[in-house]
């Protein structure tokens, strides 16, 4: 039996919104430490990993490990019925056919309840090791989104170069080329606008912009985003949620010189 109450339905809404354009069906793996999700896109070049820790919910109860196979498009349809401030409770049996979602309006006494049919999804689970990245950049999530959207207008892929001078996002396309460079920046009044760059060695990698734009849909979840790069390994784009919950995206770099 799973029962998890989320003070703000918005959290789940935004998480699902961010993932649904990347994967179609996925398992929500629930255990006593929280709700986890790992899924890859159809091409298997990107991976999303989400963890909503038990403390995100109040209360959280999960007697047995249970995998909830969900079609994210369907889940989006149900979650659309919830207001951002609604209290969301998800419930499931031990061997569930349906996922029960209850939305309680905090202002009015409105209570809506939905049952979402579940499905069996056979997914392989990848083990992701803790990696020491060569470059770790944290910046405002809105800034990252803006860079991606701007460069997207020019090209399909972006090259990210991290050096001691700063981090340079550059691209070149048919109509021309462009580049955005960020340097370490400390804003005392608004710490959420800080840009921090930790570097052990210079890194230069190319990524598909379409995927990065997709990742940016999670910008609403967190004010800051962390990019972690090392040569020859996937880029990690991490949004930290309340507590130690997180939403992470991994993207394989483009190797070889096309474009």
């Amino acid at each position, binding site marked *: 039996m799973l029962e998890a109450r989320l003070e703000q339905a918005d959290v789940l809404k935004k998480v699902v919104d961010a993932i*649904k*354009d*990347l*994967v*179609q*069906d996925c398992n929500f793996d629930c255990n006593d430490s929280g709700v986890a999700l790992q899924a*890859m*896109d*159809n*091409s*298997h*070049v*990107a*991976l999303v990993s989400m963890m909503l820790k038990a403390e995100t919910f109040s209360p959280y109860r999960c007697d047995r490990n249970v995998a909830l196979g969900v*079609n*994210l*498009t*369907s889940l*989006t349809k149900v979650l659309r019925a919830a207001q951002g401030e609604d209290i969301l409770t998800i419930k499931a049996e031990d061997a569930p056919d349906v996922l029960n979602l209850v939305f309680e309006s905090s202002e009015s006494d409105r209570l809506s309840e939905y049952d979402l049919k579940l499905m069996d999804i056979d997914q*392989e*689970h*990848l*083990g*992701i*090791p803790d990696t020491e990245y060569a470059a770790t950049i944290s910046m405002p999530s809105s800034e990252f989104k803006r860079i991606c959207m701007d460069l997207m207008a020019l090209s*399909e892929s972006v090259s990210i170069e991290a050096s001691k001078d700063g981090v340079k996002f550059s691209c070149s396309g048919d109509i021309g080329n462009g580049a955005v460079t960020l340097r370490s920046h400390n804003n005392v009044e608004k710490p959420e606008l800080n840009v921090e760059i930790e570097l052990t060695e210079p890194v230069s990698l190319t990524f*598909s912009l*379409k*995927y990065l734009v*997709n990742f940016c849909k999670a910008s609403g979840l967190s004010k800051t985003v962390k990019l972690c790069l090392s040569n020859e*390994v*996937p880029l990690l784009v991490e949004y930290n949620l309340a507590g130690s919950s997180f939403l992470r995206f*991994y993207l*394989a*770099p*483009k*190797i*070889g010189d*096309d474009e």
Partner: protein
Amino acid sequence: MTRTTKSSGKSTNNSIESAKSVGPKVQLGPDSNNPPHLLILPEEISNEARIVSLQNPRFSTDSRYVVCPQLGFYEIKAFTEPKATPRSWLLSQDVAQDGVVGSSEAQWEINKSTEPIGYVTRNANLCVATPIDPLFLVLTVLAPLPTSKNSESPKKLFLSGDDYLEQFSSTSPQFRAFLRTESIKSALEKRMAAVCDTVDAGDETMYRLNEEKLVDEMLRKATRMTTEGLPASVEEKLIRKALDMPILGISREESSLNGDLEVTTQGELGSQTPAADTPDTQITVSSIGTATSSFSEASTAATSLTKESMAPPPDNKLLPLPAIKAPAGVAELLRIRTALFFICSSYVAPHVSDSIKKLLASATTTVDFTPLDAHLAHLAKMRQEVVSMRSIGDFSRKRSMVEDEDSESRAEKKRKKDEEEKRKKAGESRGVKNLKKVNVTGMKKMSDFFKKK
């Protein structure tokens, strides 16, 4: 007047006899334990006629026959509706009916004053009494099933007509009463004489079955059957088709689509009907079951002795059919043989019909079938050739028949797959769809970086 057993309200008619049970108008009454049967009897049947159980000459089981001292023997044919099309007879009393007899009259009067009498039968079975040659019936005692298994038939003895009739009636106690009727007895003895060697011993005549005479008698019946023309369905299936010439040479110059089609259909015919084409053409019992009602009507009429006027089978000569291409007399021979085999398979015990066939093959009979056999063998050979020619030399069909069937199942599979895909697409967001178009060249799969757990 014969009558079937009845449950409650009763009535009889001159020619059609039926029984009815009284029931309330609206509410359905319970099923009668002894439901009425509809039986059509000959018009001038006498009051002494009875329905008796006699041994069926073909199947050695008890079957019902109508025996009338004046008219002779009738077998009862039941016509059954197929289960798929359920129908019923509605039996109701004709108000202006006469001929209501016996004690039922009073009852009928009472019923008429209160409520109408009607009965709806469970199914639309109809029994018809059709004349049968008593020869077939006595054949069971003239040629009894050999008791010993050794092929040497025991020496046949001459027996008096009374002895045979005694044996005959031993299986049917009801028939015993008729043995005292002179007309029945003489009719049976006359028929026995037709197929037996006879010896006069004093004032008694002794009989012994002569198989050659039997074959001649059967051939006579078969010939008579064919003079009126065989029923249309038999003519079409067993005569015309069996004598169909396979089309051999199709000139390639004018090989239009039509020509090709003709070749294939001809070939198929040849390959489908070898069983019916072989010289041993024989109507099996199962084929009798499928034969139309006109088939059995006509055949029984043909075998009848008593009924002189024979109604020609319906729509036999209505359709002008192209003439059968065969040497003179062959078609007629085939008709006779088909008729004979039909008679054998419906009215003659298997062991007797076997010996009849053996005698036919030995060609000591009045009708010589050798030209027919020769022609059929010739046809079979030609068909064989057509089939083999087609399998080697027919390039007109791009795909074989087997593949055609395959393509059907392929289409089915494709449709299923399409449906599944459609369903999958419905659960796919726009973002996922767009990501499919992204150029992922040069990007390694995630599993190359992260190991499976």
